[in-house]
């Protein structure tokens, strides 16, 4: 069944406390080579049948209006996975 995957990330200019916490843990356990960690969200919208243009447009609409808040987040990807 096809799935529409929506990726949402906190805006790049904003502090991401969750990512900062993971970054801090990396430093404590000796993981090196990663200068920053940011945590976002992945939504999987399951579709019964075919992904039409209308359905993809509807997914884009809910991604902007419901799944993300444009004040604090950006939708960074919408893709169809078979």
């Amino acid at each position, binding site marked *: 069944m096809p799935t529409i995957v929506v990726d949402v990330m906190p805006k790049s200019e*904003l*502090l991401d*406390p969750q990512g900062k*916490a993971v970054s801090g843990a990396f430093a404590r356990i000796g993981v090196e080579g990663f200068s920053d960690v940011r945590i976002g969200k992945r939504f999987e919208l399951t579709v019964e049948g075919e992904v039409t243009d209308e359905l993809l447009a509807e997914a884009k609409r809910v991604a902007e209006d*419901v799944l993300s*808040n444009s*004040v*604090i987040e950006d939708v960074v990807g919408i893709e169809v996975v078979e």
Partner: protein
Amino acid sequence: MSIRIGVITFPGSLDDRDAQRAVRLADAEPVALWHGSHDLEGVDALVLPGGFSYGDYLRSGAIAALSPIMTEVKDAAAKGLPVLGICNGFQMLVEAHLLPGGLIRNDHQHFVRRDQKLTVENSDTAWTNAFRTGQEIVIPLKNGEGGYIASEETLDRLEGEGLVAFRYAGVNPNGSLRDIAGVTNEAGNVVGLMPHPEHATEPGFGPDTATAMRSGVDGLDFFTSAVAAVARIAA
């Protein structure tokens, strides 16, 4: 006839009963309202209480902001009905686009609970008219996601138009930009803040003061302000 102030309960609301009690202490009649209804029961003002509606899933206040009753809340707010959002209620108001900005996890990543000093920045709203601009008050604060953010442009507009209602004083407890603790809309009828006025309305249960332990009742004036605002609209 006493003024009727509705308090909306959402799944996961915690402070709805305290808000109802605060309304009663301000000599108004509390009306319990339910998120799943489309009926505001003709109330004169509304409180969206604190808590963790829908477990803070998706984003704090986001799912509650899509509740059936929010359609009526938005209509009523646009017509000038006084609406106060406290903590999770504030998060709902920004998610419903009734107030500008957003709220993110505290910058220090910890839940914080403290008696918080605030400066009243705008005493010309439906919920702050009993205060003086510049007055310092102390009410409890308790949240994990209370960091107020907005774009620089929005922040400049808020400051320029006097829409910052409250600012943290002494300590910024959560990394809120420009120490903003609460904001108002342009009309002054919709106000939201992270700290909890309803927990500082009754001697014996409020923050400590210089005179006695737990005697702080600075929160009561939020509710008496609304009563005065409603009386003024009716007159």
